[in-house]
C-alpha cells in the first residue's frame, strides 16, 4: 500500500542528493542543476501531502497549487541564473565557483 512516508523519504533522498551537488560541484551550471533537484524534492513532498493528508476535499489541491507556484518561481530563477552565468562566463571566461572569489577579505 502506497503511503505518505514513501514519497517523503523519496523527497528527503532527492533533497540530500541535490544538497550534495550544490556543496560539492565546482561548475555553476551543475550547482544550478542540483538546486533544481532540491526544488523537485520539495515538489514531491508537497504533492505527497496533498494526496495523502487527511484534509477536506477542497483543500486537498493546495499541495498541487503550491507545487505549481514552486515550478513557476524556479523557472524564473533558472532563467535569471543562467543569464547571470552567461554574463559571468563572458566577462571572466569561467563558470567555476572557486575562481569567482572576489567577495573575500
Amino acid at each position, binding site marked *: 500500500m502506497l503511503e505518505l512516508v514513501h514519497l517523503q523519504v523519496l523527497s528527503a533522498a532527492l533533497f540530500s542528493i541535490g544538497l550534495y551537488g550544490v556543496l560539492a560541484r565546482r561548475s555553476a551550471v551543475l550547482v544550478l542543476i542540483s538546486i533544481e533537484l532540491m526544488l523537485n524534492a520539495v515538489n514531491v513532498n508537497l504533492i505527497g501531502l496533498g494526496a495523502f493528508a487527511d484534509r477536506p476535499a477542497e483543500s486537498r489541491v493546495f499541495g498541487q497549487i503550491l507545487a505549481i507556484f514552486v515550478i513557476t518561481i524556479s523557472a524564473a530563477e533558472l532563467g535569471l541564473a543562467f543569464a547571470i552565468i552567461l554574463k559571468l562566463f563572458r566577462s571572466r571566461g569561467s563558470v567555476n*565557483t572557486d575562481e569567482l572569489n572576489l567577495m573575500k577579505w
Partner: protein
Amino acid sequence: MNASLAFLAPALPACAFFVIVLFGRWLPRGGAPVAIAATAGAFVVFVITLLGMLSDGASAHSIRWFEVQGQATFTWGTVIDPLSVVMLGLVAFVALLIQVYSWSYMREERRFGWYFAVHSLFAAAMMALVLADNLILMYLAWELVGLGSYLLIGYWWEKRSAAEAAKKAFVTTRIGDVGLLIGIILLFKATGTFSISGVISAVETSQVTQPTLNWSLILIFLGAMGKSAQVPLHVWLPDAMEGPTPVSALIHAATMVAAGVYLVARLFPIFDAGSGILPMIAVVGLLTALVGAAMALVQTDLKRVLAYSTVSHLGFMMLALGAGSVGAAMFHLLAHAFAKAALFLGAGAFTHSTHQTDIRRMTGLLRGMRLTSIAFIASALSLAGIPPLAGFFSKDEILLAILDGHLGVVFLVFALIAVVLSALYTGRLLFVLFSSRPFVPEGDKAARGREGGAKAHAEPTPGESHAVPHEAPLLLLLPILILAVLGAVAGLLAFGWTGSYSGFGAYITLGHDKGFHIEPWLTALAFLLVAVALLQTWRSYISQSDPLRSATAVLAPARRLLERKLYFDTVYQWIVDRVVVTAAQVVGLVDRAVVNDKGIEGQGILVRYAGAAMRYLQTGMVYNYALGLALGAFFVAVVWWILS
C-alpha cells in the same frame, strides 16, 4: 471679592512673556504695552486679593497637579495671608512702576520687547514664589527668578563684563539653590509632604528628628543666603550692577534679593524649631550688614555703593529674622524696597542726564535735577535711619527685636556699629554726590571706571560731565517720586492705628509678634550715633575741617582691604582657578583615559581585532558559504527538534 483669583497675578505676566516672545515683533513697541498691562493687571489682582483677605481672612487655594500614588501629591496652590499678600503687593507695585520707568529709560534699546518679556517673566516668577503654597512650586518659581535675573543682568550681553556678571550671579545663587533643593527633599523625606503648612505642622508636632531638621534648615538657609546675597555668597550682587539700572531697582532692591528673606519668614516656624539655627542666621546677617556697609564706604561707582548698601540692609533683615522677629524683617524689607528702588531709579536718572556713573564726577545735580535729588536724599536718609522716615522705624524695630530676643548684647553692639557704618556711607554718598564741585581725589586712575558699572549708556567724556544736568522726563520722574514718598511714609505702618491693626509686625505674623513700641534710650542712642556719623561725614567732605584727618593714614590699610572687596573675589577666583580647574583636569583626564580610550575607543579596537580575526571566514568561495548555510540549517533543525 475673591482671594482665590490670586493665581492670576503670576499668570498674567507669564502670559505676557509668551505673547511678547512669540508675537512681539508684530506688536507696537515690541509688545512692551502688553507687559505693562499684564503687570497692571497683576496689581489689580493684588488689590482684589487684599480686599478678599481683609473681608474673609487668610486662606489657601490649591488644585491637584499630579500624584505619585501613595508617595506624594503635587499641587498648584496659593496661600493668602498677610505675609504673602504684602509681598505680592510690593512685587506687583514696584514691578509696575519700574516697567513704566523702563518704558522711557530703555526706549533706545534694540531689544526693547525682549527686555519687557524677561521683565514680565521675572515678575511672574517672583509673584508665584510669594504665593506658592508648597515647596516644590516655590522652588520652581525660585529657579525661574534666578533665570529672569540671569537674563536681565546679562541684558547687554554684547558687553563681556555684563555676560560675566550674569554668569557669576547665576552660578553663585545656584550654590545656594542646590542646598535649598536638598533641604526641601530632606524635609519631604521626613514629613512626607511638600505643602508648607503640612511641613510646619509636622515639625511643630515633632515628627521630624532634630538632626534632620537642623541639616535641612541649614541647607534651605543656604538657598536664602544665595538669593539674598548674604556673606559669603554676596559677591554676585555688586557685579550684577552691569544690568540696566531699572533691573537693579527691581531685582536687587525690592524683589529677588528679598526672596531669601521671604523664604525664611515663610518657613519661620520651622526655623524656630531648629536648635541653634536662628543664632546662626543672626550671625550671618550681622556679618553681612557689617561687611556690606564697610564696603559701601569705599566704592566710587554710584550703583555699586547702592549695591553694597543693599547687601548691608539684607544683612539687617536676616539679623532681624535671626533675632526671631519676622515682623521687623518684613517691615525693613518693605521700607528698604521702596527706598532702595527709588535710589536706584534716581541713580538711573542721574546717569541718564550726566552720562556718569562715578559719584565724584557728578556735579550740579541739586541745581539741575531738584525733584529727583530731593527724592534721592529722602530715600537715602530713610535708609540711614533719620526720623521720621520709614527706615528709622524699621531699623529701630530690628534693634528692639535684638534687645528683646534671645540674642546677647554683643549683637546689639555690633548692630549699632553697622548702623553707624550705614550712616557713614550714606553721608559720604550724599555729600560727594551733591556737592557743587567734582571730587577727584588722589588715585584718579581708579576713577576711570575700573569697576565698569553701568557704563553702557555712554563712556563719560570730560566735556559732558560739567554740563548742568536737566530734570528727567515725567515718566522717569514719576516712579521715583512715588517710591520715595512711599519709602518716606511707610513708617506709619509700624504703629497700631485701629483696633484690629496693632502694628505691621503683629499683623503680618498673625499676632505672633508683639506690636511696635519705642524703647526711648535705644531709639535715642541709635539716632545720636547716626547724627554724629552724618555730621562727621559733612565735616570730612564739605567743611574740610576734619579733626579725624590724621586718622586717614592710619586707616589706609583698612581702606585698601575694603577696596579689594575683603579679598572675597580673590579667594573665589583662586578656588576656581586652582581647585575647580584642577578637579576638572583630573576628571577630564579620567574621561580621556578611561571613558574615552577604554570605554569608547576600546569598543572600536575590539571590533577591529575581531573583524581582523574573523575576516578569514570570508573565503570568497560560494560553496563555502553554502556549506555554512547548510550546517546552520542543520544545527537549527537539530536544536528545534531537541527542544520540541
